């Protein structure tokens, strides 16, 4: 009976397993193969070794893209977690108007990245956005033109993404906060521990799983970063806000160089792997500690 049940479970898992093997691993291997060839619009079997990778790492635009992804990723993940936690704690502590506040902070997440990008493009445009509005209000020297400044434009993309995503982090952490036993708060109050200390030293470690969930959701959104850049800056000014996914898409279609695009996606995959490996290792390590 038990075996039969287990067999049924495997049968139920089969479609997903096939999908994972064929679609994910199969196409990844296919991309790897293409990345070693000289393919243009169509795949060819003319293999050129690591030539596409060599070109990739001498291409300024690719290097800028990787650097931008690092800056953007760090900012978005750190700021979203901090802001999301603060918002969640605030709402948790003061239950009045909770429904309204929760909706307000979560609403941006309901927008597509394209809509977010366009809204922020308008707001940040120096000739008709925030800067111009402040100047008309009398602050004649007010300057906020990051979106047209090649050295600062990637921060504006991060601002837009943070605005959109920190509501989601707040909801996840709020759910975690609600799961915390009220007795802990009572005990802490009896011991005279200040509230901020309870949040930082007691509640935050208890929310580790909620934080992990939020981080992984944010991380996948970071790697996929494409549409918000296209809508907001189109990678400009110049190539200052280019990101790897856009480089890959441009070469896959418009520039008809699928070999270079495949090499780019393999590099991106390896980068993600290197980033994820320590996180996964840490989680297993802590699980083993907990089991002991």
């Amino acid at each position: 009976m038990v075996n039969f049940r287990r067999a049924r479970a495997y049968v139920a898992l089969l479609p997903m397993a096939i999908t994972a093997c064929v679609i994910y691993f199969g196409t990844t291997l296919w991309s790897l193969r293409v990345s070693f060839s000289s393919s243009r619009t169509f795949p060819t079997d003319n293999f050129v070794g690591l030539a596409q990778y060599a070109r990739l790492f001498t291409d300024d635009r690719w290097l800028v893209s990787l650097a931008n992804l690092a800056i953007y990723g760090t900012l978005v993940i750190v700021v979203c977690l901090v802001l999301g936690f603060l918002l969640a704690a605030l709402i948790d502590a003061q239950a009045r108007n909770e429904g309204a506040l929760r909706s307000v902070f979560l609403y941006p997440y309901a927008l597509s990245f394209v809509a977010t990008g366009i809204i922020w493009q308008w707001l940040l445009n120096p000739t008709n956005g925030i800067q111009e509005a402040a100047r008309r209000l009398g602050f004649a020297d007010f300057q906020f033109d990051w979106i047209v400044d090649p050295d600062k434009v990637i921060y504006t993309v991060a601002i837009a993404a943070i605005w959109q995503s920190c509501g989601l982090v707040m909801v996840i952490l709020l759910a975690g906060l609600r799961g915390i036993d009220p007795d802990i708060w009572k005990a802490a109050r009896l011991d005279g521990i200040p509230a901020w200390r309870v949040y930082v030293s007691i509640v935050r470690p208890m929310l580790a799983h909620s934080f992990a969930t939020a981080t992984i959701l944010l991380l996948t959104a970071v790697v996929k970063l494409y549409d918000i850049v296209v809508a907001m800056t189109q990678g400009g000014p110049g190539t200052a806000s280019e990101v790897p996914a856009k480089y890959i898409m441009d070469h896959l279609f418009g520039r008809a160089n699928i070999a270079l695009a495949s090499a780019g996606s393999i590099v991106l995959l390896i980068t993600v792997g290197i980033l994820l490996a320590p996180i996964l290792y840490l989680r297993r390590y802590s699980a083993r500690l907990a089991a002991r």
Partner: protein
Amino acid sequence: MWAARITSFVLALLAGAFAQAAPPRAEVMHWWTAGGESAAVRALADAYRAAGGVWVDTAVAGSEQARAVAISRVVGGQPPTAALFNTSKQFLDLIDQGLLGTVDAVAVRDGWDRFLPEPILSTIRVRGHYYAAPVSIHMPTWIWYSKAAFSKAGVTKEPATIEELFAALDRLKAAGLIPLAHGGQPWQENVLFRAMLANVGGRDLYLRVIRDRDPRAIQSDGFRKVLLTFKRLKSYVDVGAPGRNWNDATALLITGKAGVQIMGDWVKAEFAVAKQLPERDYGCIVGLSPQSPYIVQGDAFVFPKSENRDVVAAQQLLAHVVTSPRAQVAFSKQKGSIPIGTGFDPATLDPCTRKGLAVMTDPSRVVGNDENYLIPDQNGALSDILTEYWNRNVPVETVQKDIGAALSR
């Protein structure tokens, strides 16, 4: 009894199918979705219907996206009857893979080689076969100016040399207007570069750099001067330019806030929507010297190969109709392009189109667009270098070196 009934039913069906041969049915993929553009497509569709065909419209917004969809459908075995491409090397790989059919019969019968400009002809005719039907000829580097802005700035004479253009830009700047309406997107920076290469560098340098990819030309002082002139234009652009669309830049001319825009003749459609007329509200300069090259940039339909005779018939009819003088004039009026072919009355065209047509009839001035000579990969790498040079402080020698490397691939 049953068998007889079924047999007669099948026979009747077959008879019906043969009696009324279906009209040629063409599914046409294109990216013309803006206001003036879709009106232009309607003109082509009407002409096709008038010739007895059925036009099935498949529009995909964005030229790159539309071409990507067309290529995936061809590769996936579900091709459209015809798909729009630029007259360029974009469809060369499709030809090499044997995925495109030819329209030799139509091209020979209609005498395409008699009236098509050489750069267009050489991209659609590959190894003696015609693989595409051209529909439009654009010139991407026209210089447009707002008459209102010019009179406000006290510019009385249309600039006829590059020095006069910069003098006019200086006066516009002094008058507090935006001298050069520019949209800070890589392809628009590319347009400015080609305009300077054509007008400052001249035909010879243009062809040696873009067509021959000659390292000596790329390292020459003449080309350095072109790059420096291109960069000099940056100082006449307003701070809101980055990311701006080309039609928003045109709107600055329409409202008289900006003086000059360097852009293709598709901007005429924007002026037309705003009820502005050429030579009354805005001026058009085709080049800054009597010998300046005329760059032709075209769109053409390609025909995915089919074994089905009905599909081939629909393709042949389409190739004939879209290149016919009547459809061409109706189409060009909406699109802002110059009609291909002969046999139409130039008096029905607007003054700017007539100006362009007059230059184009001199074959020694006609050159192809960058995409005619460069494969998309080289063109993209060139565009990355130019937009970086425009937006950042890069030494001009580095730019020359980078362009040399990008074009030698």
